[in-house]
């Protein structure tokens, strides 16, 4: 789960990391009020789950509350990388003497949390990694010992030489790592980490992604979720325990297993079609999931044909067949459906489907070819 900047800043502040004042506003008037309270020049920043806000015009300096209001009016409702801006963060503009970067994430290669810092902050870190890898320092943290004090200090030394800045930065890195662990995060990033003209180290922008699998340990975080930011179909899928990703094609797929679901999409493309979605009903045999899956697929108007591809293992083919029959009895299907079923209880499934007027095949290639053909014909 991705958090908004304003949410991430709040969590870091609670973790003891210095974060400048600021509040979130969902109307231009609220932005104006906040700017007035803060006084001086402020920054108005679009709150969206996307990078490149600055380039898209979603971050503006405002010298007065009135200007903050007019900037907010322009930014609110703006669309940045398909995300509609519904909130802006209003913060004081800081006198920035230096910008750096700091982040914690889990590294797949070392299988450990890794702390990364760079003296080049405020810019795209992937770009820095590509072009000037020596500008980034990484520390792989041994989970048996956690982040040791000298390690945080050593990273801080990569950024600063002044003793005061060093100890501030070491403290921030230590807290960032502790926050990362206790929050069950998959990313905790400060970009930029600045030095003010007064010699204070502060987190200006923050990005936090939480590990969905760890959310049960911090149930409070669930309320940070923004239902409006998530496409409705994806939210419904999540609530039904399905994995769903919207694509742009016309063949709606329902598959059991993530690998097979990807392979099904690839095969649609191979035969000249375009998948409308990724959808994995998972390993369970629950007909309700099949019903939910069909509802989600059919709610997508670009879907011209529905393709089931089920390899029965734990998933029983008859359960899936029952789900299809149940769902289509509730709501008549207005689009053609191609069903491929094989494996556990395949024979029973075919009987159930044929009784309800469906046909089903055993070949994945044949089913995909037929679905692509129907999508083209539809």
């Amino acid at each position, binding site marked *: 789960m991705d958090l908004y900047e304003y949410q991430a800043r709040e969590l870091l502040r609670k973790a003891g990391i210095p974060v400048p004042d600021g509040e979130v506003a969902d109307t231009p008037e609220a932005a104006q009020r906040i700017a007035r309270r803060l006084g001086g020049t402020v920054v108005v920043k679009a709150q969206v789950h996307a990078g490149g806000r600055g380039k898209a015009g979603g971050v503006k300096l405002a010298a007065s509350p009135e200007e903050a209001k007019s900037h907010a009016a322009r930014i609110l409702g703006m669309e940045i990388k398909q995300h509609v801006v519904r909130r802006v963060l209003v913060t004081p503009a800081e006198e920035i003497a230096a910008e750096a970067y700091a982040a914690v994430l*889990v590294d*797949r*290669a070392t*299988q*450990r*949390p890794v702390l990364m810092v760079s003296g080049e902050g405020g810019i795209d870190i*992937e770009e820095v990694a590509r072009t000037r890898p020596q500008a980034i320092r990484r520390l792989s943290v*041994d*989970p*048996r010992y956690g982040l040791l004090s000298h390690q945080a200090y050593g990273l801080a030394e990569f950024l600063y030489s002044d003793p005061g800045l060093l100890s501030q930065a070491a403290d921030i890195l230590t807290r960032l790592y502790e926050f990362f*662990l206790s929050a*069950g995060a*998959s990313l905790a990033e400060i970009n930029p980490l600045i030095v003010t003209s007064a010699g204070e180290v502060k987190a200006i922008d923050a990005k936090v992604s939480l*590990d969905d*699998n*760890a959310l*049960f*340990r911090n149930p409070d975080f669930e309320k940070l979720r923004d239902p409006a930011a998530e496409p409705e179909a994806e939210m419904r899928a999540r609530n039904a325990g399905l*994995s769903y*990703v919207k*694509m742009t094609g016309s063949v709606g797929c329902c*598959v*059991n*297993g*993530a*690998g*097979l*679901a*990807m*392979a099904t*999409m*690839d*095969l*649609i*493309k*191979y035969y000249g079609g375009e*998948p409308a979605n*990724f959808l*994995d009903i998972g*390993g369970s045999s629950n007909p309700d999931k099949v019903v939910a899956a069909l509802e989600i697929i059919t709610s997508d108007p670009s879907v011209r044909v529905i393709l089931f591809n089920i*390899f*029965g*293992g*734990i*998933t029983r083919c008859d359960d899936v067949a029952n789900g299809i029959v149940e769902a289509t009895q509730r709501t008549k299907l207005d689009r053609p459906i191609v069903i491929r079923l*094989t*494996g*556990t209880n395949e024979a029973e499934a075919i009987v159930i489907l044929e009784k309800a007027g469906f046909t089903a095949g055993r070949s*994945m*290639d044949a089913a995909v070819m037929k679905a692509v053909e129907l999508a083209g014909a539809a």
Partner: protein
Amino acid sequence: MAIFISDATKVVIQGITGRDGSFHTRQMIGYGTRVVAGVTPGKGGQAFEGGDGIRIPIYNTVERAVTETEANASVIYVPPAHAAAAIMEAADAGIKLIVAITEGIPVLDMTRALAFVADRGARLIGPNCPGLISPGCGKLGIIPGGIVAKGPVGVVSRSGTLTYEVVSQLTAAGIGQTTCVGIGGDPLIGTNFVDCLKAFGADPHTKAVVLIGEIGGTDEQEAASYAGAHLKLPLVAFVAGRTAPPGRRMGHAGAIISGSSGTAEEKVKAFEDQGFRVADRPSDVVGLLRDALRDL
């Protein structure tokens, strides 16, 4: 005949009384696996009905199970919140082969569990994996026994049902398997492709390998480099996710293209660069494998 397991493999099931654990324990027993013990804290002293009158003793701890039954492998069906702890418990009890089926374990839990498993010199397969099956020897996990057959091909894969798809086509084509291993779809897993290729390379019965990868991470690239340099067997690869969009998690926690890295294209290219055949469709695997075996 098999990698990782043998006739001496005696299995304890962690979470044997749960819904998944009890179902698959019976399947494993039905397939001829030597399941000798189950563990469910608080149910020690009870027995699990394994079908056909077989009663499996249940213990409170893996340590007790090992002491009483000499179990040397574990299969874990424990819910995600406690699964990393269950992995550490198995390793702490001296179990050297741990198969974690559980999906949804917090990734930070796994950083600790993986360190612990390495410290104890144990092998972890998974988590979030279907386990492994060796026709004629037994199975640890959930791969359906009906789709495999004894034969010369080693299969290793990051996915579940996609593996079943490919394996059942192999079996239908009369090509049997030594062992089929699902290494799991999580970003952090115990045994990776290279570990399995090493094991297949050292197994006298394995004559060819099928590797089924997917988007995310660089495990396939490392497997390609390793196989190119060290594997003395023919290898056919398939990589799922050519149509997957960047930045989106495709079902598996580990199946995500980060930035421009972890794409199916780079993985396919890695195998091709090493001279290995890569199937465009799952159904092409059988033909390419026949070609590869013919080339020997």
